[in-house]
């Protein structure tokens, strides 16, 4: 019996059968097999951005606990997956984040003041206090606009790459998302389009083990999330996401391949959400303490610091100076953000459309001239 067969032959291997690419061991020793042998100045830059991201997270969490900001969603434990991946792409490439990758925007030069202003939703906030904290927009560093629905940025990153291909621009795009998003419609649609049109895009899957309280084992019965790539004809790689050098190597190679017409790559960055999902969540209610302790030994910052120290490129004195610098920078940003007034009430009606239609102008007048909400309602 002849069976209709119109599929192209695929040579994609099961990701679960492939090695998880790693360079650094827990003591910061580099394995020569995959070591990208990066310039130490670059590694130092990545390390400093990772620690800065961690310090900012810890400070913002405290501000939330003190009731000074409303919310924070941090990236504790995932700094290598976020910062080293951004570092591995070219300046002209575009990043489409979910809500946990502010560190990537900061690495690219997004101003800390702009970020903190967003945390306060004040008059200086780029988006005029229209979004919750951490929902930033950073077009100047080719970084999207953070949205809360899971996965929607995936198809958009693919579409942006599609546009680049049509316009003959050498741009690679990347979408960041978590393990939970691999169950979303947009993951399916995004990989489908990227495969069919062979688009220059990377799927940066931060598998941090948890989607709020639901473990990865409840997102899929597959042996590895990266194996989902096979069904779409999209090449997939697994990498130790807490190993900045391995992340850099894999993302950099995939970027080069995509830029040269080699198509998309799904990169599973195996990391761990060291903290809560957000300040609204208490993981001790659902997470085994032993698991957390075991995973914390993989801490990406400690591993990279040990690596740098082994190379003689980092010292305690440098660490202290860096910490002092970030602490002072944060202090000033917070002071300025807290001193800034709230956005104008009128601004609530702007940017719905390019030109304000009559019904919004009417509502704007009604609101601005009307009674004010009580403070601290």
């Amino acid at each position: 019996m002849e069976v209709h067969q119109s599929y192209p032959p695929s040579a994609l291997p099961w990701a679960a059968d492939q090695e998880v690419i790693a360079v650094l061991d827990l003591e910061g020793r580099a394995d020569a097999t995959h070591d990208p042998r990066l310039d130490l100045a670059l590694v130092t830059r990545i390390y400093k951005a990772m620690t800065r991201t961690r310090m900012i997270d810890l400070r913002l969490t405290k501000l939330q606990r003190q009731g000074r900001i409303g919310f924070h969603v941090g990236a504790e434990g995932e700094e290598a997956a976020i910062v080293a991946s951004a570092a591995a792409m070219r300046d002209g490439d575009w990043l489409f984040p979910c809500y946990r990758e502010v560190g990537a925007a900061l690495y690219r030069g997004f101003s800390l003041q702009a970020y903190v202003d967003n945390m306060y939703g004040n008059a200086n906030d780029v988006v005029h206090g229209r979004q919750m904290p951490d929902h930033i927009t950073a077009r100047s560093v080719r970084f999207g606009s953070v949205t809360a629905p899971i996965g929607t940025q995936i198809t958009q990153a693919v579409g942006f790459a599609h546009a680049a291909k049509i316009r003959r621009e050498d741009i690679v795009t990347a979408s960041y998302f978590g393990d939970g998003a691999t169950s979303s419609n947009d993951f399916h649609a995004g990989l489908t389009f990227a495969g069919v049109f062979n688009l220059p895009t990377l799927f940066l899957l931060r598998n941090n083990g948890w989607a709020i309280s639901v473990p990865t084992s409840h997102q899929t019965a597959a042996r590895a999330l990266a194996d989902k790539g096979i069904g779409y004809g999209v090449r997939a790689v697994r990498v130790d996401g807490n190993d900045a050098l391995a992340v850099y190597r894999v993302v950099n190679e995939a970027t080069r391949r995509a830029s040269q017409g080699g198509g998309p790559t799904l990169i599973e960055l195996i990391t761990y959400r060291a903290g809560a999902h957000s300040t609204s969540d208490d993981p001790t209610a659902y997470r085994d303490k032993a698991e957390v302790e075991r995973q914390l030994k993989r801490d990406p910052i400690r591993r990279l610091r040990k690596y740098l120290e082994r190379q003689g490129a980092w010292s305690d004195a440098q660490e202290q100076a860096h910490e002092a610098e970030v602490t002072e920078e944060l202090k000033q940003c917070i002071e300025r953000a807290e001193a800034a007034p709230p956005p104008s009430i009128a601004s609530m009606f702007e940017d719905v459309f390019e030109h304000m239609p009559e019904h919004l102008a009417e509502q704007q007048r009604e609101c601005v001239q009307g009674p004010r909400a009580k403070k601290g309602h």
Partner: protein
Amino acid sequence: MQMNMVSAINDALRVTMRADERVVVLGEDVGKVGGVFRVTAGLQEEFGEERVIDTPLTETGIIGNAIGMALGGLRPVPEIQFGDFIYPAFDQLVNEAAKYRYRSGGEYTCPMVVRVPVGGGIKGGHYHSQMPESLFIHTAGLKVVCPSNPYDAKGLLISSIRDNDPVLFFEPKRVYRALKMDVPEGDYTVDLSSAKVIREGEHVTCVSWGAMLFEALAAAEELKDQGVETEVIDLRTLWPLDAQTIVESVKKTGRLVIVHEAAKACGLGAEIVALLCEKAFLHLEAPPKRVTGYDTPFPYTNENEYLPLAHRIAPALLETARY
């Protein structure tokens, strides 16, 4: 040149694609076969597979991709094959396309036109007949357009493609090949913010759009013999609404009937009645009336009873005029 709505929309796409290489068309079956209604026929031959793209069958994917393309500097015109299939893309439309400008403080915009064949009267049953305009009007950030004739369809589509905000362009399937009219060749636009008085009358105002406009006109003609002159307004752009044209007409007639295919509850008719009560209550001589689809799913066999056709509009106009 004589054109029906299908050829007028096709011509609008051709005209804009020739003038602006950023305009691309994508959707299910839009390329080789030219769409299931042939609205995009011949475009792939002229503009190539890169600009007229047959996509995989996922509405989420089509709209998510189109948004990415818009962010990336193109002017995508995605087609959703039937309005009834737009719901998988609802998240991308209402949470993403509609909100990009607002949530990014204007750093990102999402200029795209989603073409959607809509409406009943083609024996399509529930899954090929719905009119979902209210769902999209209720969420801030989308423009919603629904032409009733070939001339407006071409001019409104060209305006929509050049607009810097996302537009849902609803094409009434029942009108697609129902009439031909003289449509100018080449470039022209119809303003996206104006309704049009297409029949003047002093006794009662009837507001409608899309395919039902012709039913409203038929009912208006029918009532002429009974001495009732109906002013008929074609809304054309459903949102943002040209409230002024309606208010001015009602100030003259004192009476209002709204006709739309979509279900009655929370339909656009309800909003128009409320607006009129706010802006022209003291001019009203009769309770405003709505002649609409019923609050049931769209039926197959009884579609002509479901739709607000002339036989239901005429008595409503008469009752309102003589109230």
